[in-house]
C-alpha cells in the first residue's frame, strides 16, 4: 500500500508567484521615501526648515483677523463671473508687468492716496477681491484690514496671490 502524499505537487509550487508580503513592500516604500526625502532636503540649494513657525503667515494672520480667505479656484470663479472689484495691492510697477483680469491697482504702500482716488468704487456693499504677489506677502492682508476700517463689508483675500494665479496658467493682463 502506498503511503498518503501530503506534499504539494512541484508544478503547483513552480506556478506559485513569490509575491512579497504587503507589509514588506510597505516598509520598503517608506524606507525609500525616507531616504529620498532626507537626501533631497540635504542637497536642495534652498531647503525648507525641518520645523517652521507658520503662525506668522498671511493665512494665519488673516484667519485670526477674521478676513475671509478665498482659494485659487474661488478667486478664479469670482474674477471670471464678474461683479467683484479686484484690487492689486502690489506696487504700480508690478501691476504694470501683469495683473489679474480687470484688476485695479491699489498699492498698499500708498493706500491712503489710492483710497481717495477710488472712493467712488468702494461702496460698503461692493464685493472686493484683494491680492498681492504671493502667499508670503502681507500687502493684501494689510489692505484688506485698511478697507475694512473704511467700511467695506465684503472683502475676500486671495492670499495665494498673483504667483499662484500665473502658475496655474490663468489669464492675466
Amino acid at each position, binding site marked *: 500500500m502506498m503511503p498518503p502524499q501530503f506534499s504539494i505537487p512541484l508544478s503547483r509550487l513552480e506556478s506559485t508567484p513569490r509575491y512579497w508580503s504587503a507589509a514588506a513592500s510597505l516598509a520598503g516604500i517608506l524606507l*525609500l521615501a525616507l531616504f529620498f526625502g532626507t537626501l533631497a*532636503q540635504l542637497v536642495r540649494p534652498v531647503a525648507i526648515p525641518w520645523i517652521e513657525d507658520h503662525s506668522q503667515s498671511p493665512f494665519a494672520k488673516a484667519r485670526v483677523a477674521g478676513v475671509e480667505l478665498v482659494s485659487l*479656484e474661488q478667486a478664479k470663479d469670482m474674477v471670471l463671473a464678474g461683479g467683484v472689484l479686484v484690487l492689486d495691492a502690489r506696487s504700480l510697477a508690478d501691476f504694470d508687468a501683469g495683473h489679474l483680469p480687470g484688476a485695479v491697482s491699489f498699492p498698499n504702500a500708498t493706500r491712503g492716496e489710492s483710497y481717495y482716488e477710488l472712493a467712488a468704487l468702494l461702496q460698503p456693499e461692493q464685493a472686493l477681491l484683494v491680492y498681492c504677489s504671493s502667499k508670503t506677502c502681507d500687502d493684501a492682508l494689510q489692505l484688506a484690514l485698511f478697507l475694512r476700517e473704511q467700511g467695506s463689508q465684503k472683502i475676500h483675500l486671495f492670499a495665494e496671490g498673483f504667483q499662484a494665479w500665473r*502658475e*496655474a496658467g490663468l489669464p492675466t493682463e
Partner: protein
Amino acid sequence: MRPRSSTIWLVLEWSASLLVAAVFLLASVPKILNPAAFASAVYQMNLLPGVLVNPVAIYLPWIEFVAACALVIVPPTRRGALALLGFLLAAFTLALMVNFLRGTAMSCGCFGGTFLETIFPPWTAPLRNVVLLGVICIALEAGRQRQCLRL
C-alpha cells in the same frame, strides 16, 4: 496558453495600477519640486501640530512618488503600494471633508498648486479621491483574482 479570464484580470490590474500611478506621479512631482508651497497648503489645512507640518511636506510627496513608481516598476510590491496609496487617499479625503465642514475651502494642494487643481472645482476633490479609491480596489481585486487563477 493563458486562460482568457486570467488575461482580462491582468489587463484590468495593470490598467488600474497605471492610472493610479499616473495620478500620484502628477501629484507628487510638483510638491517635491516646491516643498514650501506644499508646507503652506498643509498648514492651511489646520489639522496637524506645527512641528509636523514641514516634515509631512518633506516626506509625504516622496512616499507618493516611490509608491507610484513601485506600482509600475516593481509589480511584486504592488499590493503594498496600493494599500499605502489607498490609506493616503482615505486620509486626504477625511482632511478635505473636515475643512469643507469647517467652511475653509482652501486649495487642497493635492497637485502642488499646478493648473491641475483649477480644472475642477474644489468640492470635487473628495469625489475624485473616492473614484480613485475605487480604482485601487479594482486593482487589488484584479490582482487577487489573477493569483487565484494561476494557483
